[in-house]
């Protein structure tokens, strides 16, 4: 298997293969749609147009993508440290809680401070929620996949408690907090562009998208350029070699998980501080899980993750538009399509890799001759 990744040029590796997998997923989805008596091609065009066809659509696509960038990065940082963090969902919820508390703490006195604190709060609470499973894994060897799953359930119940109790919106009926004080919230992209004199349709896209990009760069830099990243990857690959190299495995495990949790927690910036401007009980809507798929579709490389995130953003937004336009295509069907995309693009990379590689081999051989 060694050097297998060397067998293909980058454009084929990063461009051709994912595209083929995507097409395969759409093919199967198309068959289902066709089976349900709808026109798959119309559906596809509506989906694409709905995702990128007009400014607002693009705004929404990138808005959703922002969520996935956060959760995807979270999964991959943990993964590089050899940990499977399925707890992104719960960590995101706690992140949302953290930022909400920060907002209600100082929101009235100083919106700016509040926003700053909120960003911090999101990261800190997310990290804290990841800490316990991490600690249990590092010190007690408790299976982190299980503990993180459990912590998702616990987080949702905890949030529910607070949102129908202490944090309940006055007179509210649903588990949601009161609205944030005026002025507390992240600037929307259209406002930002307007300031720069550019006209852009309204959409929930907001500056947390930039924060996400900053995180992406930070993660990439951390993994490839820093000693910490190097040690993190060593721990991820081989504990006994890590000890040999004097790297404290337990501490690294915990730190990596907390970083992961912090990233997941920051998802709340986009959803809560960017758009909803109040804490909603189930605002994470499974984005934490999708992050797993995003991370693997992006081959756990920051850039790949951004691309995969955009793909999923497009599926969410385009899917919604599709459901608008074709009443018989329900949101359930969209969910299924997402599942298929994850299956083909996330788990079946060899489906086309092997044949394509053979193709390239033959090609090279001919060149050589």
């Amino acid at each position, binding site marked *: 298997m060694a050097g297998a990744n060397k067998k293909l040029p980058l454009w084929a590796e990063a461009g051709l293969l994912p595209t083929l997998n995507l097409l395969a997923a759409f093919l199967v989805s198309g068959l289902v749609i066709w089976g349900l008596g709808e026109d798959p091609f119309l559906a596809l065009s509506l989906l694409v147009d709905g995702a990128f066809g007009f400014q607002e659509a693009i705004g929404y696509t990138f808005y959703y993508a922002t969520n996935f960038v956060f959760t995807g990065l979270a999964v991959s940082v943990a993964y590089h440290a050899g940990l499977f963090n399925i707890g992104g969902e719960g960590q995101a919820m706690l992140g949302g809680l953290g930022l909400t508390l920060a907002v209600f703490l100082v929101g009235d006195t100083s919106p700016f401070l509040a926003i700053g604190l909120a960003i911090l709060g999101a990261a800190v609470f997310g990290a804290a929620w990841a800490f316990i499973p991490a600690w249990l894994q590092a010190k007690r060897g408790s299976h982190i996949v299980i503990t993180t799953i459990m912590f998702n359930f616990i987080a949702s119940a905890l949030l529910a408690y607070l949102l129908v109790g202490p944090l309940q919106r006055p007179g509210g009926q649903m588990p949601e907090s009161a609205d944030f004080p005026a002025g507390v919230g992240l600037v929307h992209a259209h406002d930002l562009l307007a300031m720069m004199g550019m006209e852009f349709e309204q959409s929930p896209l907001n500056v947390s998208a930039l924060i996400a990009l900053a995180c992406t760069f930070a993660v990439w830099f951390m993994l490839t350029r*820093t*000693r910490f990243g*190097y040690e993190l990857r060593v721990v991820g690959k081989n504990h006994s*070699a890590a*000890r040999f*190299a*004097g790297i404290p495995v337990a501490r690294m495990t915990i730190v990596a998980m907390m970083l992961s949790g912090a990233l997941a927690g920051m998802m709340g910036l986009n959803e809560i501080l960017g758009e909803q401007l109040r804490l909603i009980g189930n605002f994470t809507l499974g984005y934490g899980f999708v992050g797993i798929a995003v991370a693997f579709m992006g081959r756990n490389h920051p850039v790949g993750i951004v691309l995969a995130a955009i793909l999923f953003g497009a599926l969410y937004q385009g899917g919604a538009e599709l459901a608008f336009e074709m009443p018989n295509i329900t949101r359930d069907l969209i969910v299924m399509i997402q599942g298929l995309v994850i299956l083909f693009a996330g788990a079946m990379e060899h489906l086309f890799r092997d044949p394509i590689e053979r193709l390239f081999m033959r090609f090279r051989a001919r060149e050589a001759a």
Partner: protein
Amino acid sequence: MDQPFAIETRGLSKHFGDVRANDELSLIIPKGTVHGIVGENGAGKSTLLKMLFGFYRPDGGDILVRGEVVRFQNPMEAMGKGIGMVHQHFMLVEPFTILENIILGSEGGADLNAAKAKAREDLKELEEKFGFDLPFDEPVERLSVGVRQRAEILKALYRGAETLILDEPTAVLTPQETEQLFGLVRQLKAQGKTVLFVTHKLNEIMAVTDDVTVMRAGKVVAVRKTNETSAAELAELMVGAKVAREAARAETGEHKVRLSLNGVYASGDRGHTALTDISLEVHDGEVLGVAGVAGNGQTELLEVITGLRRLARGRIWYDGAVIADEKTTTDPITLRRMGVAHVAEDRLKTGVVESMSARENAILGYQREADFSRRGLLKLKEIAKRAAGYFESQDVRPRNPNLPISSFSGGNQQKLVIAREISRAPQLMIIGQPTRGVDIGAVTKIHDQITELRNAGKAILVVSADLDELLAISDRIAVMCEGEIVGTLKVEDSDEQTLGLMMAGEKRNAG
């Protein structure tokens, strides 16, 4: 009619990508003989064997078994033709008992207990015939390599092997175990079986084989009758040039104590006492060899010295300062800074990170040194330069630091590891199994480097399962048995037999 050839290959070829692992390979192995194969790391030995065993499929050429052409699709078919193989890395299921491992795949019947009962019967016979005596109901993970290997051989015979393939069977054995193995091999031969035998140790070739084939770069470069050739000639044929005599050990005189252990106790991973009252000293300008049957505490010894395992009792001094006792252990990073280098015993498990590139492996353990990282940032250029340097100085092949370390042979991996550890000009060098599975070309080079260090007045502690090696490079040899040092000998008054007996715990000696 009775076909004289157990195995014959005609123009056999196997490629991996653009590597010609086996290239138009033809050889003939007469029935009832012991046939040796030697060659450098990466010469293509394992590949050849794996094809004969149906594990790889040839890209070209034929394999003939007893005169008829065969096209093995899988090992099962090879076994059907009476070919059995003992792999370099044992193919045993650790939590299973020997018996379970032996019947795995040829249980004959759905009911496991019945299958076991039947197997016991059949095995009795084989045991008589070849004089095995194995603890059938012990889980393999609790057994020594020697026992595991005999289990592997019995497994092959149980499957009716006529021809037995052994890939580097002695790499991890003690002299006694090796002797035992050879005894077995001779017995197999006496019973009319054919044995195919790969090793890097030429004296073993001389000891057991009838014929020997020399491979280089996937080709057969020579075939000899063993009694008509010599180790020297084989060595030459292998590398394609005269092998330099190993560097002589200069007189270094009396020197200060660099490392000393005093009454050290430590427990192993399974909670048992692995080290009992270990006391020893290593001086500057000397090589202290540590001999012992695998699993008698050598591993733990290396670990306590290099800060990877805490002591239960006792003290360790380095250069006059305590580096470890009940309470304190000095972490590997600090130790390295103090000038203690460590070549890990288990390369793949500890010494390198397999999936990482050779370049990244070149700084493993030194990643925090000033010349590799500053303020938490890696100095990539510097690292690349250093790695390239190692490749040159040690002649590591293939010469490409960006390949994952896993795609280098153990031999080449080892060269890289040694380079990494020597490069820091250590005062004390702790080395586990310096040349396990490494071809003689590389062995000579590595031994030379150890000797040069010693001559330069550095202190060196070497743990090795290979007595020839210890005898060749050590000044003194300490022998471990059941976690104790049963004796320490000057190299001039030690020899295989005495050491062997001490390792087996038969003989004590306060040298």
